[in-house]
């Protein structure tokens, strides 16, 4: 659920596709080239972050009845245009998969113990979400 290596998008989507699910919805977060930003540095309180990701996954399954939820978040140094996070949800019908996917990424941003620093030519700044 948290990886230092590049995310293999095709592999994640392949895992979501099965005959039980008529719909797969994925959210893909990408490092955006904001002014002055050259890369991101992401760190996580690993064990606690993994526990929270597992809770969010279980919540999505029970709330929306989706058949499959997979979440993978990068950590370490990530270049512009690289994938930071992928959430893939599958369900028999598309509405539940859309709702579950939105729920997971919103809750991830709000609750999971992960921080990011925007690296710039002058050093960097921790992203403050408040």
């Amino acid at each position: 659920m948290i990886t230092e290596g590049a995310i293999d998008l095709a592999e994640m989507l392949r895992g979501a596709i099965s005959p039980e699910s008529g719909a797969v919805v994925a959210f893909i977060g990408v490092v955006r080239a904001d002014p002055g930003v050259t890369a991101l540095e992401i760190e996580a309180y690993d064990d606690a972050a993994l526990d929270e990701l597992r809770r969010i996954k279980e919540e999505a399954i029970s709330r929306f009845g989706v058949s499959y939820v997979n979440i993978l978040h990068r950590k370490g140094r990530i270049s512009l245009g690289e994938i930071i996070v992928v959430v893939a949800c599958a369900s028999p019908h598309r509405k539940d998969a859309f709702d579950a996917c939105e729920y997971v990424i919103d809750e991830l941003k709000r609750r999971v113990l992960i921080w990011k620093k925007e690296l710039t030519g002058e050093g960097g700044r921790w992203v403050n979400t408040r």
Partner: protein
Amino acid sequence: MKINIRAFAGFREILGREISLEIEEGSNVSDLIERLCRIKPGFRDAVFSETGELRDYVIIMLNRRRLDMPEDLNSPLSDNDEVAIFPPVAGG
């Protein structure tokens, strides 16, 4: 007793990612913060305002349970407790 401290984001840059401190039996979270202020330059300014109040972006977990601030500053510590210090999260 030994307390394991884990710091993240800006606090990690001041304290280091993982440190252990020997502190007196009977110490609480506030005592630990004060000790860190004495030994780590920059930590006091990072956690306390000019008027000496804990800054509202300081989040502290004791053994993975988030403490309510400032009332839980007097939570007692035990040997081998894990105290984590970090700002609001910003993943995704």
